[in-house]
């Protein structure tokens, strides 16, 4: 008798727990339905910076990747999938940063090659004059 009662209690308890759990999970793991404005702005700013550094010319694919991810993030906001939107915005930002870094690296290498070339040319010229 007591055992049955206990079982009964247990059943009710589980139901209750389930309800509580759902509430807890919803609060803990689901995203707040606010768009990730900060991350989206950061992504846009990073893309602008990269563009200003002529990433279009030196790191076109990275720049386009960053733009595509930003577009997807904006679509996710519309679809109210804010978690995905935030991830895509973050990805867009780092991709734009990579576009900038690669642009700078390419430019730096080009400048060095040019310097090397003129240094070599000058050495050669000196050599030539020395031979005269």
């Amino acid at each position, binding site marked *: 008798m007591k055992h049955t009662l*206990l079982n009964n*209690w*247990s059943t*009710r*308890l*589980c139901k*209750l*727990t389930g309800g*509580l*759990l759902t509430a*807890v*999970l919803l609060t*803990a*793991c689901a995203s707040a339905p606010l768009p990730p404005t900060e991350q989206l702005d950061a992504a846009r700013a990073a893309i602008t910076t990269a563009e200003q550094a002529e990433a279009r010319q030196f790191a076109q694919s990275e720049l386009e990747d960053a733009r595509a991810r930003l577009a997807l993030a904006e679509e996710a906001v519309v679809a109210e999938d804010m*978690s*995905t939107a935030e*991830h895509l915005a*973050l*990805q867009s930002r*780092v*991709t734009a*940063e*990579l576009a900038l*870094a*690669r642009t*700078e*690296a390419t430019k*730096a*290498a080009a*400048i*060095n090659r040019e*310097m*090397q070339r*003129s*240094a070599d040319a*000058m*050495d050669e*010229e*000196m050599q030539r*004059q020395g031979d005269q």
Partner: protein
Amino acid sequence: MNLPTFLTSGSATTAATTLVLTSILLTGCAAVPSAPTGSMEVRNKLNTLQNDAQTVQYARVELREADEAVTLAEQPLDADETELAEHRVYMANTMIEIAKSKASVRMAEADRTEMGQRLDAARLAARTAEADRAAADAAKARSSEAAVLAATARETEELRQQILALEAKPTDRGLVLTLGDVLFATGSADIQGGSNQNLEKLANFLTRYPDRDVTIEGHTDNTGTASFNQTLSQQRADSVRRYLIERNIASNRMTTSGLGLDHPVASNDTATGRQQNRRVEVIIADTQ
């Protein structure tokens, strides 16, 4: 209400509930412990960079940030959280790439400083060489300019050398070559010794410059009468003229005059002065 009843209905039940709740919660928010796909690759990639001394030197901050991103990507996730797992791996991978690029930018900048110094040195050397060359060119130009004037210039120089050799003095009358009295015996108009170095030079000079005429003047000291001295000076001037005619100098180029004692160049009161006054002056006219 069931709940208050339940909560007050015994400690055993409460303990059991807590246990169940805890285990459910753990299952719900924590993950099945497995490293997300791709996290190992990013870790390996990062390790490679961290073992590269130059990357560590030039992209320390970026490497640390990438390391944090990789560590996050390695956190175990539930099987249904592949989107998050992929996101973290993507972030980590991109940050590694950024570190790599930043390192190469800064490495290039460092190289540039060194190269700039080398280039400056080369430029300096080039400028020095250029200056040397310009100086050499100028010298060459000067010498070629001189070469254009070579005919006259060389002649001028030669003449100068010849005049120098003659020991003739430029005066307003022209070049004056003084032949001392050692040329003649006292009271004699004959040239001593047959050959005289100064006369030789004069002959050579007149041979070389046939358009130059000369005036030969004889002078004496005040010893003896004026007429004697005049005659003697004329004879001595004529002696020189004869000598030059013997050396094939045209006679019409030479005029002689005996000026006697009227033009002393030194005092007749001393022996030395008188010796200086006994002389023949050869005046070489300037051309034109």
